[in-house]
């Protein structure tokens, strides 16, 4: 069914591509040279590590930086690093003096160093931040850890789940009702870690244009996530949002949750506003209104559960496709690349039919990612 939709959208997709080519070729020759990816020429040294550091390096590489990834010889990692596109990798033995000098020299000529180690490890290797900054005052050193460079937990091991737990957000994320659990390792490792680090690096490199000086960036994944959740923290006394049973974002609010369809797939309903709720109930052919949502939410949830399970997910999407009811399919990972909206926007490429690769975000229209 989705393949049929693909063919429907092809003409517009082609038009879109042609438009982009036409617009970019209408610039002058100088304009075209100027429209390089934003980080072209920026040199990054990424000391290989888990999740957050490679993702930070990936963002920089995607937006044009030259990223050199340094791996230890015979490194036995839990899993292979899949975030290596656009980077070049060299093997350096940091247990040898030669290895240390190699890295030191690379940092002398680099703009950014990404450090994924526990605090003090680089210092012990003779690659401490003060030393590196003395050699190259313009260097920006991003030190990515779970708990930060200081504090009683600075030397403790941890993973995403621990950092989310320390941020204060885990009970809210788990809707305060069940055994809490974070959304895979998205929030601390990637949002509060890699993405936050990339942001800090960009701030520093922009600031450096004025000051001509680098600096150290202390990226604590716990803090990155807590900051990301500022809204949640700052509005935590808003009962309308966060009340365990009736809050809009409580996870069980009848018009803001997922519903199972006949084929075991799910739909996401995000109809917060009355006008969208009206369209939702119309599409479901249910004689209820927004006041039912307010006055008897459990009843509405029940009703919607029973109704959604009558048709398949895609049958429902056919019904809701042209009406503003804030209903969308919960796409599975192995089908996400085939959705017509994603095809139009060219949001995913395929890694040899193995898995989808998301396109870099956001889109800078004049100087896009590589």
């Amino acid at each position: 069914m989705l393949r049929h939709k693909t063919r429907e959208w092809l003409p517009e997709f082609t038009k879109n591509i042609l438009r982009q080519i036409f617009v970019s070729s209408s610039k002058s020759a100088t304009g075209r040279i100027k429209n390089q990816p934003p980080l072209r020429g920026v040199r990054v040294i990424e000391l290989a590590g888990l999740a957050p550091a490679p993702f930070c390096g990936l963002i920089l590489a995607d937006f044009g930086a030259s990223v050199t990834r340094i791996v230890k010889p015979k490194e036995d990692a839990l899993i292979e690093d899949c975030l290596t596109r656009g980077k070049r990798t060299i093997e350096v033995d940091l247990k040898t003096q030669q290895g240390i000098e190699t890295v030191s020299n690379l940092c002398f000529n680099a703009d950014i160093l990404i450090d994924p180690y526990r605090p003090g490890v680089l210092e012990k290797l003779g690659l401490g931040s003060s030393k590196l900054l003395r050699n190259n005052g313009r260097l920006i050193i991003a030190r990515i850890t779970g708990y930060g460079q200081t504090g009683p937990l600075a030397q403790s091991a941890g993973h995403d789940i621990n950092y989310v737990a320390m941020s204060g957000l885990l009970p809210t994320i788990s809707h305060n009702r069940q055994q809490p659990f974070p959304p895979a390792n998205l929030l601390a490792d990637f949002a509060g870690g890699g993405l936050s680090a990339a942001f800090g690096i960009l701030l520093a490199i922009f600031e450096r244009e004025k000051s001509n000086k680098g600096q150290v960036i202390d990226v604590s994944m716990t803090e990155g996530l807590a900051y990301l959740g500022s809204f949640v923290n700052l509005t935590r006394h808003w009962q309308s949002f966060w009340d365990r049973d009736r809050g809009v974002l409580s996870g069980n609010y009848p018009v803001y949750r997922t519903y199972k369809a006949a084929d075991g797939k799910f739909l996401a309903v995000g109809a917060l506003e009355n006008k969208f709720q009206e369209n939702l109930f119309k599409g479901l052919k249910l004689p209820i209104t927004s006041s039912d949502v307010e006055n008897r939410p459990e009843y509405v949830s029940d009703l919607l559960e029973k109704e959604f399970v009558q048709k398949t997910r895609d049958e429902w999407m056919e019904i809701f496709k042209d009406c503003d009811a804030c209903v969308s399919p919960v796409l599975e990972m192995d089908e996400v690349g085939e959705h017509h909206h994603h095809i139009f926007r060219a949001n995913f490429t395929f890694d040899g039919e193995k898995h989808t690769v998301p396109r870099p975000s956001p889109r800078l229209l004049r100087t896009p990612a590589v």
Partner: protein
Amino acid sequence: MAPLLPLAGIRVIEFAGLAPVPHCGMILADFGATVIKVDRADDQGHRLDRMSRGKQSVAVDLKLKEGTSLVRRLCRSSDVLIDPFRPGVLEKLGLGPRELLADNPRLIYARLSGFGQTGPWKDMAGHDINYVALSGLLSTFGRAGQKPTAPVNLAADFAGGGLTTALGIVMALFERTRSGQGQVIDTSMVEGAAYAGSFIHMTQDTPLLWGQERGNNLLDSGAAIYDTYETADAKFVAVGALEPKFHRVLFEKLGMNPNASIPEMAMNPEEFRRELTERFKKKTRDEWTHIFAGTDACVTPVLELDEVSSNEQNKSRQSFITLDDNQPFSAPTPAPRLSRTPAHAQVGLYPKPGQHSTAVLRDFGFSTAEIEQLLSCGAAIDRASSKL
């Protein structure tokens, strides 16, 4: 000398909107930008907007021609515009990228929407849950047997939306130092979320990590050594002991066989879970926190929002800013920490809508006569003297 701020001197025009755009503006303000919020003329400011800390507010009636040309003039001498509307809305007001970039080719025009500026779904309404659903990621969030659950509005609104847009803006600002030109940024929260979850997408074919039904994988609550456990006082601890060297410490401290291997655990997963569940129930959360502090067992307390600032790690780093207000309140400190040019979150300084209308217009070179004209026709509303 006052510490430098990375975005000092950068002027941002932020149209009032929902969660992601205020968050983006807040980040920029925290890091030194002058952020001017364009509030709706009819917004009386009954609800205190804590995301507007450190921003200035101009109240404008965009239904009036004088109102839109006021905003157009502000954009002429600004660096960044943040657009929260559906594609085409600003164009209809004569404030589209074509006009504003012609006025000011250095402008960075950041458009933040759910589905993006183009595509068959661009005009559809939606919220965070819809965007995470479309990114593919929502299908991986949730315990076995339960419905997929989005992490409130963190994944799309804030990670894929606010923070991603802030990143794009600073990238464009940096690029502008070389080219002298601004540009349009198209942030789709669907894409931002998917990109942030690149690792999850790209490891779908890694058997160690994925391949089972939701809730039965290593990182989604399928593994006993990577989950939360209830304690004697009905609170929780988080256990993230993925590597053998870490779960060895964990088992030791719990009085279990420290040499249990992953294959053994895989053979009797329920047995392991039961053991861990029973043992953790024997002490309170804070007792466990004390036992595991300073070890490599990857065990941390699951903190509530009301107690984060009193935890010793968070307290030592002042990860949460507390005010000496009437009510004790904590706001997360801006992240990440730049050592030489740190952020400065003006917690406690929340503008009322329209509080700075006159002041901002004056800053932007409007004459007294012009300001009076705009106020009298209702294009701009000044609430500087109004009490909340």
